[in-house]
């Protein structure tokens, strides 16, 4: 299965600023997925990122708040824009298929 390197692992940010999270995969993958895990909660899919096209966002998530880039088949970024304390969560990227899905180690974001 693929190996994902995600960074940063954690950050503390001021409200109103933006943070870009990076995920690098050790093999080429068609789709990458971005999730949010709020404190004590399960994972919620933010968007699906396909190389060469705009990301597809789930209900409740918008591109202006969570812009995603997917410049090639091994890399993607998620930006959390104009942050507020409500954005404090763990953000994870994922790749995979019917054989199973691999997750990055997560970015623990705290907005103060």
């Amino acid at each position, binding site marked *: 299965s693929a190996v994902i390197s995600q960074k940063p692992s954690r950050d503390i940010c001021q409200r109103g600023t933006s943070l870009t999270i990076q995920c690098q995969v050790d093999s080429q993958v*068609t*789709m990458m*997925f971005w999730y949010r895990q709020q404190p004590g*909660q*399960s*994972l*919620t*899919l933010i968007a*699906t990122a396909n190389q060469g096209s705009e990301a597809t966002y789930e209900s409740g998530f918008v591109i202006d708040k969570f812009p995603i880039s997917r410049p090639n088949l091994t890399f993607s970024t998620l930006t959390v824009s104009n942050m507020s304390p409500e954005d404090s969560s763990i953000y*994870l990227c*994922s790749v995979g*298929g*019917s*054989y*199973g*899905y*691999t*997750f*990055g*180690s*997560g970015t623990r974001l705290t907005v103060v």
Partner: protein
Amino acid sequence: AQSVTQLDSHVSVSEGTPVLLRCNYSSSYSPSLFWYVQHPNKGLQLLLKYTSAATLVKGINGFEAEFKKSETSFHLTKPSAHMSDAAEYFCVVTLFLSYNTDKLIFGTGTRLQVFP
């Protein structure tokens, strides 16, 4: 529509006793089902997966799950709990997107506590 329900938010067992984490799913087609484990401050790890082969699936660390279509269930079991099993467990069902790519629908999670 695809959905998954984890029936217990918390399960507590004594070390050495059996573990049962319950999961029911809803799917308009034959789904793929997974169990993932998340240890505190750690990433998600795949425990096991069902993809329409054998209905009894064996995973890592002694865990197994049985796919029961008639009951739409995919309960996770382990004969004897170990202290290191204490973690959050997620039942996951897939939603088909395209060939060889699905979207994952996560259950709300079950926190397993293991007492000595």
